[in-house]
């Protein structure tokens, strides 16, 4: 499996380079940050300032030279200049990645646990009130626009705060700018209060689709011959479900989860915007709206790496979960 892993990583390098090159060409030609700079301030910047800005972001260089300088710079840890002249893109990228991971980690864990529990339960109790309820809720969250649901949750949070006379649930940012009594415990509680609403938002959206996968997969397994045989041999139902059915049913979910987590790590754009978490999603939006070429490329690079890694993880996980699969 080690050889397989190394081979996969090596294959991904040219894929990464090719994708960055194509995207670089697209991004460079998608707008003119120099013209934006020249017109976005009042009084309009002098010609010298506009020229200096163009030189600073390397807009005066040929595209191929820019790409070469960028890719070789990245190998040395230099992600290139941003249209925000003092911004260190590398620092920005990793700070934002941390923020997004913080936001996503708890949500994904909760979503995974809930979706396995409810999905399996729904399958076991197929066509009962519980199954219909879970199905309905699943489809409801699948159909509900995230921006609307998040705002609804914010209002619910404010209502709870008002009823409890507290300021526990935060609607913006990772934490409060200050705490009246600044102790580690208070800071922890404050962070949890700010994490709660966006986590619920993200968790329920993922929960909705994952529950459906679990249910479908579980149903297939429960109706398979080996489960029927296990039951016929006299094994208890609970044991059959947990030891034989669920483990097999989780295999497709592992793939889906790994791929979903990879895409969410690229930025839960809507959730981050609504809850003002300055993560990868905000970075993507800002970089795209200001034609910040190198910042966008940094985002792309990290997101691509995450997708490649999680794809690999999904494949490896498959092998772990399913003894029939072996990579040579």
């Amino acid at each position: 499996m080690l050889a397989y892993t190394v081979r996969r990583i090596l294959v991904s390098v040219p894929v990464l380079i090719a994708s960055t090159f194509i995207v670089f060409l697209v991004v460079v030609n998608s707008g003119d940050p120099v013209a934006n700079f020249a017109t976005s301030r009042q009084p309009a910047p002098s010609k010298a300032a506009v020229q200096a800005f163009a030189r600073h972001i390397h807009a005066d260089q040929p595209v191929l030279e820019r790409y070469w300088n960028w890719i070789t710079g990245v190998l040395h840890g230099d992600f290139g200049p941003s249209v925000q002249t003092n911004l260190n893109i590398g620092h920005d990228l990793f700070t934002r990645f941390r923020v997004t991971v913080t936001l996503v980690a708890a949500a994904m864990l909760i979503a995974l646990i809930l979706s396995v529990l409810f999905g399996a339960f729904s399958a076991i109790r197929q066509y009962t009130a519980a199954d219909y309820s879970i199905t309905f809720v699943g489809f409801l969250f699948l159909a509900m626009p995230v921006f609307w649901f998040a705002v609804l949750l914010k209002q619910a949070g404010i209502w709870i705060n008002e009823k409890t006379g507290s300021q526990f649930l935060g609607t913006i940012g990772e934490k409060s700018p200050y705490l009246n009594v600044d102790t580690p415990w208070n800071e922890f509680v404050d962070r949890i209060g700010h994490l709660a609403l966006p986590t619920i938002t993200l968790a329920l959206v993922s929960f909705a689709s994952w529950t459906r996968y679990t249910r479908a997969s579980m149903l297939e397994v429960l109706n398979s011959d080996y489960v029927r045989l296990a039951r016929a041999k006299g094994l208890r139902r609970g044991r059959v479900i947990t030891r034989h059915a669920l483990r097999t049913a989780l295999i497709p979910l592992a793939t889906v989860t790994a791929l979903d987590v990879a895409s969410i790590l690229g930025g839960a754009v809507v959730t981050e915007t609504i809850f003002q978490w300055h993560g990868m999603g905000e970075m993507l939006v800002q970089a795209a709206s200001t034609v910040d070429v190198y910042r966008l490329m940094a985002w792309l690079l990290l997101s691509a790496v995450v997708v490649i890694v999680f794809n690999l993880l999904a494949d490896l996980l498959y092998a772990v979960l399913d003894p029939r699969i072996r990579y040579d």
Partner: protein
Amino acid sequence: MRAHPSALARGLTLAAGLVLALAACSSGGGGGGSGSGTSAGLTSCTTKGKADTCNSGATKAGGTFTYVLEKNIQQWNVQDANGNTFENGEALGVVLPQVFVPQPDLTVALNTDLVTSATQTGTGPQTIVYKINPKASWNDGTPITADDFVYYWRTNDGKDCPPPPASDATQTKGCLPQSTAGYDRVKSVTGSDGGKTVTVVMAKPFSDWKSLFGAGYPLYPAHVAEKLSGAKTGDAAHMTAAQMTEGWQYFQKTPPTKYATAGPYKMQQWVDNDHATYVPDPKWWGAHKPSLQRLIFKVITDATQEPIALQNNEVQGIYPQPEVDLVKQVKDIPNVTYTIGNGLNWEHFDLNLHNPVIGKYKALRQAMFTAISIKDIVSKTVGQFDPKVNHLGNHNFVPGQAGYQDVVTATGQGSGDLAKAKKYLTDARFTGVGTALKTPDGKTVGPFNCRYTTGNQIRQSECQILQSNLASLGIKVTIKPIGAADLGTVLVGHQYDIIVFAWVASPFPSSNAQQNWVTGGGGNYGGYSDKTVDKLVAQAVGETDQTKAAALLNQADKIMTDDAYVLPLYQKPTFLAVQTRFVNVRDNATNVGPPYNTAEWGLKK
């Protein structure tokens, strides 16, 4: 295998219950708001003469006020072309001093905490004398002196600290001031009385002399730049370009938590992309001692989230661009006062004179502008939440400014008078008026495009109304949105026939006029050129009498209006909402924003 009907019913009931529970949470979120938003506080701000005093009150000690910044601050030198952002001006105005401060009534007021007087003592040559307040000092104990003024002048005149050379790959070896206007006309800045009197002698007269050393662009501590660059302390007059560059770069990269400041507050903490925390500066000598325990500027980059944060008491003051839903949301929050003011931003239609037909026929331009109904535009856009919005009649001044004179209405432009518009065309021998317009030499007029920034619903409506108005003349207009990041490309590349966007007027209109209307000016994207206008604007910039300068600008404006190049529509409304338990926070539509008087903000006594 079908479900039992009762099981299905139970399931749906349970799910519906969940939805109702969520909906209940949602509807209760307003906390029983009953439109009490329009309480006393800020409501009187739009009454004439009240702009500078509304929402006043005595304060009591304590409290934290969190105000929203709509953008992060990446560059801390507001004098720099790159750092010249509204948010940077707001954040730095709290801790750095400036001579004249733009006020809510759009005038400028002398900051007597910094200088006890600033007087134009002579006109030949123009001479200005500043008397620095004897108590004025940076919070590291260094007095504020003429040296700080010399440093300011020399870094902003475009000569002593020139722009970075092309060979500088990082483009950091030089100064790039946001504007050299005025400073490039200074002949000398000298200190006397132990540095407490500053005498500025101009080589060429400068009308907007009150914009020097302030007006949103405060002083930075010269001694800090001198020390870090190895220059002699107190001798900014002899700093080399390299030394000044070092200071310039330092102030770009360094938040004011790390160097000596001179404001009612000091910045205690800056968390990038999140917030700035200010606390009262014990060294502050000024007339108003801050009563707040803490002032926070919180970065919220999505305006639609601001009312929710205000409702949840996470912030106490917001200053977003108003929209119908946003205003309605704030109205429903209890214990919040708000005002919709008339700002310095003004919306306008521009014609691209590089288009051969538009550029050639003045009568066509006049007809187009006359056919446009600004009344319709206002009533279908901003008038929906601000019934006070009116047609703007000047390209340099807004109502309330001393020089304001309506030079547009009398021409009929913006009136929607189709008969008059058609007469312009028939008199100029256009054919197909009202059906398919053709020039006197038989060429089809249009189709023209009307361009606006995508996602801006108001501007989309404005283009649609224009499209309908011009159809009555026989001109076909297609509406073509501009990508969010492409406005600059479109303007600089003249990729439009008609475009709608906004400009910011200024308490100092001469410099703005030079940018926007003079041949080759940086903001003159449509390519307007008239020798008389160029001459009048140049005279206005060099006129030391403000009244005469305004008269010259209005004279130029009449010519330009007659040429039908830019049609002013209306002043864009501003929107400030603040919790009623705080006083002395009020709208300031200039480049310094509501934080122009943070020393006075506080809890109502």
